[in-house]
């Protein structure tokens, strides 16, 4: 089946008029403008790269989409992964959820089914091995709710094998797979984190400088993983400081500078 052009699909993710300020109560209540009026769509198969200098609010936009930052106003509409029966699929569109107003439990469910996020840093969990961390992400991504993690032996073994393959592909030597990543180098931790983020096949993927601490060969692996996820129809939003990487992975750039300027003007 020929892949449809992204423009033929409705967006997986749609931001309109999203604004954010920080009020610093410990600094006399000063209000820091971050972004104002952020508006863009991301369709399946696209990798939209947020562009602009440090401090322009790129990471804040990703965090608002993921729901770990709260937007002041605007709408962030996410098409939830389609977990309905195939019989219903032709008759109705999958539910659309506005992250800005969704209640916390709805956001958690969306993270389990729909939204993947790869940050710059690994939040290591004490005593959990690298392979188990990645395997857990694989099983979470396959589950429809945070609770339904498919706790059967077969799923467990498959996830372990997939995790092993992904870690090897990212050049993490097998002798490290059974160890908790707390003691790994920064680059090794970053690769575990990337494996975790790409392990699950969520339809929306948010990438906050995943290649920042990687060498050239591992950057190339990440670029290949991005291309594969796009071919699968994932909608990707990313931040890449390395200009060459940005040019290779981006299907479109969104300049964040104007949203930051608008925030300063509005403040």
């Amino acid at each position, binding site marked *: 089946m020929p892949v449809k052009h992204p423009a033929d699909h409705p967006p997986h993710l749609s931001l309109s008029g999203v604004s954010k300020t*920080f*009020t*610093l*109560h*410990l600094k006399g209540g000063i209000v820091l403008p971050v972004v104002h009026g952020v508006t863009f769509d991301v369709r399946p198969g696209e990798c939209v790269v947020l562009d602009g200098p440090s401090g322009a609010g790129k990471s804040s936009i990703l*965090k608002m989409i993921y*729901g*770990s*930052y*709260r937007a002041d106003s605007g709408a962030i509409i996410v098409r939830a992964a389609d977990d309905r029966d195939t019989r219903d699929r032709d008759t109705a569109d999958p539910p659309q959820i506005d992250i800005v107003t969704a209640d*916390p*439990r709805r*956001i*958690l469910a969306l993270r389990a089914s729909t939204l993947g996020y790869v940050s710059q840093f690994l*939040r290591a*969990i*004490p*005593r*959990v091995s690298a392979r188990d961390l990645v395997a857990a992400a694989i099983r979470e991504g396959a589950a429809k*709710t*945070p*609770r339904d*993690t498919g*706790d059967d032996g077969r799923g467990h073994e498959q996830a372990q094998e997939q995790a092993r393959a992904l870690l090897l592909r990212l050049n993490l030597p097998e002798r490290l797979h059974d160890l908790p990543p707390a003691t790994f180098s920064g680059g090794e931790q970053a690769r575990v984190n990337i494996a975790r983020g790409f392990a699950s096949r969520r339809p929306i993927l948010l990438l906050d400088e995943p290649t920042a601490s990687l060498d050239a060969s591992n950057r190339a692996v990440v670029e290949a993983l991005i291309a594969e996820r796009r071919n699968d129809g994932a909608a990707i939003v990313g931040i890449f400081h390395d200009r060459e990487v940005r040019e290779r992975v981006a299907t479109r750039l969104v300049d964040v500078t104007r949203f930051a300027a608008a925030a300063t003007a509005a403040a």
Partner: protein
Amino acid sequence: MTPTPADRPLLSARALTKHYGRRVGCEGVSLDVHEGEVLAVVGESGSGKSTLLSLLSGRIVPTSGSASYRMRDGHTRNLATLSEAERRLLQRTDWGYVHQDAATGLRMGVSAGGNVGERLMAVGWRNYGAIRQEASGWLDRIEIDPGRIDDSPHAFSGGMRQRLQIAKNLVTRPRLVFLDEPTGGLDVSVQARLLDLVRGLVTDLGLAAVLVTHDLAVARLLSHRMIVMKGGRVIETGLTDQVLEDPHEAYTQLLVSSVLQV
């Protein structure tokens, strides 16, 4: 669409209030906890988080407001209307309560196996061999040598006692566990092991939990949602990462900024 039982909260509080004379313990707290969900209650000493935990677990009676629980039969009951026998049954079967000091939650005069087996007997287990086998399985699960099943908790380290207290609480497969500063007073290295255990059990058993802690790192690791208390009131709520990464209230910003970054 009719809501399925899982859509209805397991535990609910509405305007829950407790006054000790003129002093406010807890004022107007409303919250819901759903199955499989861990709610952290954070705040400094005297913020009312322990009072709230006692109210939610039916250990003290509110001055006003209510706490209710969806029983295994599907009926949601106001805790204040339960008979003493019903409340005790709930506390011994469908709920767990992990105290900060393991000696409070354990029966120190009874062996490790006896501590775990006690709740099984409370729910009708009678076969000694089966009880012993189940207790032994739990000791293994919490990384205590099952060969020490007949030892007294006095012979255990602080970390082992705390793990034993957790096993004692989970052996009857409760649906809801109250955790009161479960890592307080333990060495950091011991904390990591305990947190890993709690995290694994909560995920594997699909437990709901209310976790009271002043340690934001513990809350971050274990909880899905968080409420921040000050002066007996809830001042901020949200997803755990929202509250910690984008705190809105002055007091929450102070709490978050006071944590040493490691």
